[in-house]
């Protein structure tokens, strides 16, 4: 898989409010993400981090600013840059197999089958090819979503709290799966989360956003080598820094 460099300059967004006026939700944001980098967007609920990701993904237009992918202006969603949604976004009327091969419509039948089988296998979904999403657990559904996204071998993955709907044990497990997939394939990843541990475990850099309107408060590099472990001194130091950047105390 290749990867892409993403550059944001002065990106702003506001929403029209009931009764007139505009509510500023985001920006201005300036940010450059290198090819192959794993960047977490971390911020409180309602800080506009999901909106930012939707804009970068090409689903919403910014009110101001520019977005360039490998130097070219962004022109809407593209199969080379795939979005993984919080509520999975897999199609409930399609079987696991149909979902995973959804993005492979341009391929020949044989190629599609081969590619689909490979990702079904990689996502640990063997034996569930014909199952409908409603018959799967939350973790398995998210694996289907990941397999569908990765099957097209994208340059960039946009992940909008992809593990947010999972229970905490499944979440831990999926985190390490995401980390190992990224180490193996090296796409550029933009990962939205409000979970500090998740950010420290996964990211090369953590972009901390403020309360609405979301602006970049601080960018914290995470240089701990993979695989990362909870509770090591470096880990704790970075976590503490993120707490401070978010304006939270480190104690509960």
């Amino acid at each position, binding site marked *: 898989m290749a990867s892409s460099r993403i550059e944001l300059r002065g990106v702003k967004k506001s929403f029209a409010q009931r009764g007139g006026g505009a509510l500023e939700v985001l920006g201005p944001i300036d940010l450059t993400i290198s090819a192959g980098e794993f960047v977490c967007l971390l911020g409180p609920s309602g800080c506009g981090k999901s909106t930012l990701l939707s804009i970068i*993904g090409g*689903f919403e237009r910014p009110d101001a600013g520019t977005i360039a992918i490998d130097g070219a202006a962004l022109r*809407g*969603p*593209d*199969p080379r*840059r*795939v*979005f993984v*949604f919080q*509520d*999975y*976004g*897999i*199609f*409930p*009327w*399609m079987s696991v197999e149909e979902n995973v091969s*959804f*993005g492979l*419509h*341009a391929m020949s039948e044989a190629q599609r089958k081969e590619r689909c089988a490979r990702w079904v296998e990689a996502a640990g979904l063997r034996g569930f090819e014909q199952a*409908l999403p*409603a018959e799967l657990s939350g973790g398995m559904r998210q694996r289907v979503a990941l397999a569908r996204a990765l099957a*097209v071998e994208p340059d960039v993955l946009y992940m909008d709290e992809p593990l947010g709907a999972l229970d905490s044990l499944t979440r831990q497990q999926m985190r390490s799966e995401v980390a190992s997939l990224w180490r193996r394939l090296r796409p550029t990843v933009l990962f939205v989360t409000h979970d500090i541990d998740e950010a420290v475990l996964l990211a090369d850099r953590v972009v901390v956003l403020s309360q609405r309107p979301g602006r970049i408060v601080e960018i914290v590099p995470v240089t701990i080598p993979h695989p990362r472990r909870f509770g090591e001194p470096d880990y704790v130091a970075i976590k503490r820094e993120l707490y401070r950047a978010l304006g939270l105390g480190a104690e509960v």
Partner: protein
Amino acid sequence: MPADSMQLPKPRPGGWGLPEVSRIERTILPWLAALGFLLLWSIWARGGSGGATDFPTPLETARGFEHLFKTPPGGRAPLIVQHVVSSVYRTTFGFLAAVALGVPLGIFLGWSARAHTALNWLVQLLRPISPIAWIPIAIMMFHGDELRSIYLIFYAAFFSIAVSTSSAVQSIPTVYLRAARNFGLGTIPMLQRVIFPAALPQIVLSLRVSAGICWIVVVAAEMVAVKDGLGWLIIDARYQGARTDLIVGTMLIIGVIGVCIDMLLRRLERLPQVSWGYPPRG
């Protein structure tokens, strides 16, 4: 005090939910109700509202049935068969035409915000006009019996199918549309692979409702617009010496066929392409 009354009540199989109906009750209760219904019917028909147009007793109705199922002299099939065929034929064609045009129109209106803005008011305006109100116009517009009754049945279903389909399309979660666009689907594959299958459960629900309405409308339409069919049979029985036994017999047949139509469409709801959209039972 009898000993068994000291025992604790057995827990019901249904737990703390609604009371369960036992298997024996399930067999007996409908028959009991049928018996009671026949009894009340007999008493009411005998006690009579007075006059020549008395409501027929169950026995008289049974004799009416006998007449309906008898082949008239020179005929090839029992009297009722010809009329059932006419009514079912019209309903089927009118309904299928409404599906064939209503579903695409609904998808178009749900898909294109511009089309919706331009046309929705018109659809909303035409929808509540009863097809019965169209009967005189339909008679003047169409000279063939079949065309005018098919038109009325078409009208009965077309707008409600179009409106339901368009609202089904509009209520497709954004996340599905975004995912489909993300993977680079063009308009036609988008409609085939995402929009239509996503809206299908709600479309099928609306088909069941509108088929029921069609079956109601066909009877009314046949009473005035044409010269055969179950509606016409009812009117004819009235003018042929107030044969209330034939009228009530025909009414019961209308009911039975209505149930069959509903059961037929209910089978669509069990298809896997449709049933994913309904919440699981139990």
